[in-house]
């Protein structure tokens, strides 16, 4: 089970959007994942395998361990797909090892 957070300032607007996109992609790849929309204030980066957010917020997230996917263009699903597939293969590697 992959755990992913989408993040924005209030956790209602663009993070909700990113959540929908990420869920569509993950479903298409038939990956079992849980995607949560969160606001930046209450985010615990360590609780997730990956975080998807805009660059301005990526700079505010203090986490070395969690992979952060920076979305400069939030509607760029192709880029999001590439990045998510990276995350999927990485976590798969980790879980088997």
């Amino acid at each position, binding site marked *: 089970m992959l755990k992913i957070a989408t993040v924005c300032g209030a956790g209602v*607007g663009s993070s909700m959007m990113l959540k929908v996109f990420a869920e569509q992609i993950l479903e298409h790849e038939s990956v079992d994942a849980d995607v949560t929309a969160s*606001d930046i204030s209450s985010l615990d980066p360590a609780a997730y395998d990956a975080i998807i957010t805009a660059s301005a917020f990526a700079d505010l997230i203090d986490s070395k361990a969690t992979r952060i996917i920076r979305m400069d263009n939030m509607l760029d699903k192709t880029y999001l797909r590439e990045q998510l597939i990276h995350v999927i293969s990485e976590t798969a590697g980790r879980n088997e090892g």
Partner: protein
Amino acid sequence: MAFILYIINYIFNQAVFVIGLVIIIGTLVQKKSWNQIISSTLKGMIGFLMITTGAQSLGMALLPLQPMLARIFNFSISMPNIEKAQMQSMEGIGTEMALIFAFGFAINILLARFTRFKYVHLSAHVSFFYAGLITALLKFGTDLPTIPLIIIGAVLLGCYMTFTCAYIAPLMKNVKGGKGFTLGHSSSIGILISAGIGKLVGRGSKDLEDLKLPKNLNFLREMTTALTLVMTLLFLVITLIAGPEWVTTHASNGRDIVSFSFLSGLQFGLWITVIITGVRMMLSEIIPAFHGVAEKVIPNATPGLDIPLLFPYYPTSVIVGFLMSLVSGLIGMSILDLIHYPVVVFPALIPTFFTGAITAIFGNSTGGRRGAITGSLLNGFILIFGQAFLLPMIGTYEPVMRILSETDYCFYGPLLGLVLKLMGMI
């Protein structure tokens, strides 16, 4: 028959159950499994209760402002009854609000399917609170029975959703990153005005984004932080003007103004966080359903999305627009107090941030710096004066509108209220 009566009397008159039903339908549309449906529905219902509870408590946290403002501007206002403020938030409109929210979306979809306005409004948090505004105006402004009220409300909401997306669409070509979608957001009238004004005043004005703000101002984009800070400062300024000693004896229960202001700011941050968390929990399941329905029914439609999608391209405009709208909001508040307007109004901060940011972006798109500043200043004035007109019209929805009334609420809300009043006279 008894069963049907039970449903009508005990289920449909509890707004939270209606929200639950809407979520169940939403999750069924997405073909979720039964355990996911149970968990989504319960979380969504708790989210809805968080919104109503948060709105009530926030109204309470702001009560001490009233006697202080009354003292500063030297007029007597009737002090609101605290229990009343607590009891009545959203009282009696929740059920119609939830149904208008669901049917309004259906009408938006139908319009997209059968007319040339192929726009699907996907910002559910906007349409949800707009449904509340329409419900409140109809409920407290007319004697309509429940069923016609829901039908009229849903048509109004559906048209609002479709046409705001439609008139923003042509403006999207002027902004970076605006390809392939339009905005479905309650700042639409502010955007329209700002882009228009930009054309008028902005000849030869430089792009606002050439101005680079220091990166550490980014923390203002963090809702909780920005709101708590601004509210604390607002309380500090007001308590200073009202007179520290007077405040300690009359408004703050014996606290000195520094700790009192800081506590009030924190309280404000707390309840806003509760409300926003509630919105997130409630809509987490409904929004994906909206997307699913839209893609099935009208795959070729243009989606109306939320405004923060544009913020990454315009970091300077976001901060400048917020501050400009806040300045004009505070000026407007002082003007209202000076003329002794019977309702105390203060800038609604979340709307000030979002609509200020987006009006600056669109003002900049047609009129550079001058356009951005004029547009977002104007937006702040619409917010504050519109809110002042709106609050007396919406009964128990008032606490929610004090914190969430964005430009469209402040502009179209009083207009609709006025129309209803005139119709009532006929």
